[in-house]
């Protein structure tokens, strides 16, 4: 952890809530300008959603290969003070002068001693007993674990709900004996940290994937071979639970024909998500391309509502999908998915516009492109921050056109997918924009109060 003060040029600090790609960008930009940044991430690692993706469109670059250097840069930057496994509990004051209380949850591992060697994880009594949410619950972990291979910081964390010792059940605690650094500490308590020099706050809490179980017509949760896009992303990822092999869950065969259904829970009034998620057309194409790169004979069918490949390079990307990767695009929102009880193959029922008939397409594997929804718990955070969210739970901005980064409370900025579904590029741009706005807010506030910043001195 970097210590404060090394290259700091300003009195006031900036707090960044959320350590995804957007928050990282904002933090790095501010730190390079000489601001002290306090980053608060509620998970044990920074990186956010991008860290667990396989590739990113429209370049099909390896996602973690781009992000990991930024994660490390962020963590090691002398002006950035990263608090993982921590949440904002209280915000007082006003723009230019906030007092923020952060609650750091116990990892039960001493951060300064752990080297991330993984010895404790190897010997954990409950090794491999719990679904790992960083693997979209497809991979498994023990009670002491690291979210994923490239997690930053490389510090293990003990799950309070899962660990036998913490549940006050019997355990011989092999982890304690295995750790050569004696880093495990089951006596850790939550710690409150107060920051009283925060000039501006950037909220970049990102998104979560919509759980499509309630849309019973698609059979998610009911049929064996129906997965969400994020689950697929982990399956096709070389560092994922299957080492990059997509296989069916019943017979472990790899599928030869795959279907993708778009707008699952998006543009759908039934679940109160009338908005477009803006990225699914692109990522489904990417997903189908990746499948083709892994298995040259695979067939992919994408069922879309409207093809929304906006922006430079995007329509070209779709065209490449169609022409170079042989992806078949079908304009229809399927009505129902049924399963063959023996083969566990799936039948996608759709209204075929070409023939004007209801048809069914048999596929061996089905990926649902699910909607983006705000991170769960966003209402609590909004309350703590004293800002408003819209009817869907995304943070409201002061003015969609002219103040696209300011929240409804002065001095608090909202950036990235927590205010709007968006892709990596947009999230990075918003992170950078929010960093500039934060610097501006601090400058204006200190001018107004007559204080001089260190820079002017």
């Amino acid at each position, binding site marked *: 952890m970097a210590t404060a003060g090394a290259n700091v040029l300003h009195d006031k600090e900036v707090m960044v809530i959320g350590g995804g790609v957007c928050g990282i960008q904002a933090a790095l930009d501010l730190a390079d300008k000489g601001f002290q940044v306090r980053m608060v991430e509620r998970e044990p690692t920074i990186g956010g959603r991008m860290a667990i993706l396989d590739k990113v469109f429209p370049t099909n670059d390896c996602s973690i290969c781009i992000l990991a250097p930024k994660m490390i840069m962020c963590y090691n930057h002398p002006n950035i003070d990263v608090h993982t496994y921590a949440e904002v509990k209280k915000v007082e004051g006003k723009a230019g002068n906030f007092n923020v209380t952060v609650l750091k949850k116990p990892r039960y591992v001493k951060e300064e001693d752990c080297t991330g060697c993984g010895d404790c994880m190897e010997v954990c009594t409950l090794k491999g007993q719990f679904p790992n949410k960083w693997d979209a619950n497809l991979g498994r972990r023990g009670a002491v674990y690291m979210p994923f291979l490239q997690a930053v910081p490389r510090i293990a964390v003990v799950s309070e709900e899962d660990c036998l010792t913490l549940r006050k059940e019997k355990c011989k605690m092999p982890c304690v004996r295995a750790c050569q650094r004696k880093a495990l500490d089951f006596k850790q308590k939550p710690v409150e940290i107060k920051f009283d020099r925060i000039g501006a706050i950037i909220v970049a809490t990102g998104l979560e994937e919509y759980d499509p179980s309630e849309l019973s*017509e698609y059979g998610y949760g009911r049929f064996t071979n129906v997965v969400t896009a994020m689950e697929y992303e982990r399956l096709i990822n070389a560092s994922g639970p299957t080492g990059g092999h997509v296989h069916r869950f019943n017979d472990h065969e790899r599928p030869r024909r795959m279907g993708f259904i778009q707008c699952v829970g998006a*543009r759908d*009034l*039934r679940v109160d998500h009338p908005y477009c998620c803006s990225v699914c057309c692109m990522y489904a194409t990417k997903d189908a391309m990746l499948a083709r790169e892994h298995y040259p004979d695979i067939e992919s069918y994408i069922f879309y509502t409207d093809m929304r490949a906006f922006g430079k390079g995007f329509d070209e990307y779709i065209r490449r999908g169609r022409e170079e990767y042989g992806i078949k695009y079908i*304009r229809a929102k399927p009505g*129902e998915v*049924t399963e063959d009880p023996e083969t566990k193959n799936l039948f996608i*029922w759709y*209204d075929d516009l070409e023939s004007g008939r209801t048809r069914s397409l048999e596929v061996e594997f089905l990926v649902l492109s699910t909607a983006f929804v705000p991170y769960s718990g966003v209402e609590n955070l909004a309350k703590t921050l004293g800002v408003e969210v819209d009817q869907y739970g995304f943070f409201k901005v002061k003015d969609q056109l002219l103040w696209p980064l300011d929240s409804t409370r002065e001095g608090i900025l909202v950036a990235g997918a927590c205010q709007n579904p968006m892709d990596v590029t947009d999230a990075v741009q918003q992170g950078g924009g929010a960093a500039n706005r934060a610097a501006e807010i601090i400058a204006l506030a200190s001018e107004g109060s007559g204080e001089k910043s260190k820079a002017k001195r």
Partner: protein
Amino acid sequence: MSATKRKGENVKEMEGIRPKIVAFCCNWCAYAGADLAGVSRMQYPANVEIIRTMCSGRIDPAFILRAFEMGADGVLVAGCHEADCHYISGNQHARKRVESTRELLDLLGLGAERLMLKWINANEGGVFAETITKFTEKLKGMKNTPFQNVRERKNLSEVDFQQLVKNTGVYNCLECGKCTASCPVARRDPNFSPRRTIEKALENLVDEIETDRLLWSCLTCKMCEQRCPSGVQYCEFVQGARAEARRINQTGKISHSGVNLAIQRMHGVQDLQQNRLGIIDNKLKVKKKADSKEDFLYFVGCAPYYQILYSELDLKVGEIPNHTVALLNRVGIQPVILANERCCGHDLLWNGDIDSFAQLVGMNLKEFKKAGASKIVTSCPECYRTLRLDYPKFGRFDLEVKHISEVLAERAGKLKFKSNGEKVTLQDPCRLGRHLGVFKPPRDLLEAAGAELVEMEHHGPDSTCCGVAAWVNCGMCSKSMQLQRLREARITGARKIITPCLKCSIHLTCAQTGELPIPREEVEMEVVDFTRYLAEAAGIISPNGGGEG
């Protein structure tokens, strides 16, 4: 009376002559007998209109009711003597049908004696003349029927098509085809497509929609609405479009020759005094007026009529009102029953006959007010839907309506079920489920009753319909859906399928009769009415159907 005049001419001549008699005569015996009476110059009253049919077995209860509806005071069905039928057993069918139609007439308050069955041979001209003379004398001693030529009419009220399109959210359509891909009819009939209908509506092709036979194929089961991501209310659209189609004299293929709709139209006639008092067992506690705002009025519905019409299916649907009242009594509710309840009008409404429907709404609202009711409970999902969603569109309606499953689920503890652990499956009726979102109360009650509920693949909001709605367009598509549904039920391992809707009961039972295109053991299920099942589980009736009070 000459039998050579063209149909309709006599009716005009007879205008004003009462009592009117319509005589259905079979071609081979009775008609020849009537002819003999004529050529032999036998005297008999001139108030009879003879309609020739090939066989008395062809006379459907619907024809008889139509005759009454159009102003007949008496109907004679005449055919060959027993064992003389030229089609072997046609007259035996006629006997059965006339018997049940006489029951219907009794229930309607018209009196069974207005319908007469007589076997008349070709050489029995005198018998014909005598029969008509005596029948006329008998009818003269009775009051005239309240019907003054109630014609099966077209709608006079226009539907504002643009307003309909606007109100039903048609403009929100994304043209994604999810409706058609979800539709059980479209899956069987490639010409049927809700999406295409909506697209026509968007292009304002009103005539094309109204004259399309497929407008009547829709089951209005709301599967498409359940799945539509844009909130297009397709079924409400169809309801309005059918009314408009009706105005230009379009209609669907009405099943059972329209007997059900005829009964409903007859209910809309002011002076009709039904004979409903015997419907509820006198051992049960009911009242005529509400004493307080907490009192429930039990809207009985058409079960007693269906008991007569579909007695062959041996469903005992006529017992539904008794089971319902017994269950209500058990939880401490003494419901108000109307002596003059009219049909809710559901089927007329969904057949586009909104004028007749509006008439029923008016009459029922008056009765509700007279009884001082502020809460209504129904056992029929269609009555439930109609009272709750459609009545407010046609009149001032501020009563609270609940389905029996909702009322009982809140008081399940008082039912004192005897647990039996029997494996059963549940058919969610479209009106109760998708139309009004009542999925949980029936399940809670089955659980409380100790049944082991095993769900079919399509259940709850995804439940498939019983194949026919509002007695329109029963056909191959319906049969295919019903068999598919029964097969799904069979796969659950249960042998009983329970449904809160008597129409589901009728349709799913009917589908199992006669020759089947697939092995019977794949689809055979016992269809049990929901209230019957609960009444049995609560020990109100014994499993073989006998009442214990």
